């Protein structure tokens, strides 16, 4: 009986040897860490709308008043991107004002043209009226790269009066805010 037990031990040892060989390997792991911060960038950051003569020509009742067609429908294209899923866009429309005559105009005249600016990116709109100071509400544009189109509409003067002669200048600001 003892011989039988000894034989069993020898068999077990012989079986264990291949297991040791299999577990003899070594594994090295190199972990590579990194991050990408949320960002937005305009690669084409400005455009110019040269509206020309803002007042209506002719001799009719509207002559000398704002020609809304000079601003309404004007579209310019900026180009940019945001890499964060919660990125947003806001617009601030600043009125088109007479920079030559800066004093308050007499009754019946206007030296300010208000309008609404709408920016579209990633099929999302953000808009603002120049009547109200400050930027409009932000809209989430998320992750996008490509065009940001800016369109003007609803142009009007505060008193529907005659436009004071001079140079006029306004500005529409589009802000892309990165978030993830």
């Amino acid at each position, binding site marked *: 009986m003892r011989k039988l037990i000894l034989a069993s031990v020898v068999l077990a040892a012989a079986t264990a040897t291949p297991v*040791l*060989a299999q577990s003899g390997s070594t594994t090295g792991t190199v972990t590579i860490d990194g991050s990408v911060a949320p960002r937005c960038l305009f690669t084409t950051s400005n455009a110019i709308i040269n509206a020309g003569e803002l007042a209506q020509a002719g001799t009719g009742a509207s002559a000398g008043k704002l020609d809304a067609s000079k601003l309404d429908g004007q579209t310019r294209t900026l180009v940019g991107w945001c890499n964060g899923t919660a990125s947003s866009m806001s617009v601030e429309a600043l009125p088109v004002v007479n920079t030559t005559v800066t004093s308050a105009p007499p009754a019946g005249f206007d030296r300010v043209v208000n309008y609404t600016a709408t920016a579209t990116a990633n099929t999302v709109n953000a808009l603002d009226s120049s009547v109200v100071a400050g930027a409009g509400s932000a809209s989430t544009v998320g*992750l996008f790269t490509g065009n940001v189109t800016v369109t003007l509409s609803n142009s009007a003067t505060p008193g529907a009066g005659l436009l004071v002669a001079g140079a006029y200048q306004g500005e529409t600001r589009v802000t892309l805010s990165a978030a993830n």
Partner: protein
Amino acid sequence: MKPILAILAAGTALAVASPAMAQNTTGTVNITGSVAPKCIVVPGGDSTFTRTVALGELAGIDGKMRTDLAASFNAAAVTARVVCTTAAPTISVDADPIAAATATAVAGYDNSIDFTAHVAVTTTGGPAGPFSNDSAAVAGVDTAIGGRVANNGSDNIAITASTFRTNTIDDLLAADPVYTGKITVVIKPGT
């Protein structure tokens, strides 16, 4: 005369027989042992080693993948010391892309960076490899290193990387605070 002759003959016989009765005995102790085929990390004798390369911000100022990622990785000088008891160990390399934890890719964006990992081995016969695997390919198979790994007190495994890339060169990287990739190196004793 005859009796004397008989006694002498007997005495001679006894004298010859004596050395045979005082013979030496020899004991033998057999010492046996074995060395299992294995590869281990030294110092320590562990079966694994772990290194981390922190590349930091992966995007450049233009939002695309930084072009100096290979230089940054290789500047980390990732090395290890592995020894094997066998003459013909094998090695396999598997590179996994550096992928965003949560960010998804959309048109114009990528959420992972592929690269090629290289593992150079110093053997007793000199340099071997590099043994490479690209993260866009399937894992490398066990390949003979080509000799015993060197046991000269210095690190004998050097890991480098190259060809970091997004799907297209113009892809922007999607923002994510966690991008993680991995290189796995398995060294086996071989046969």
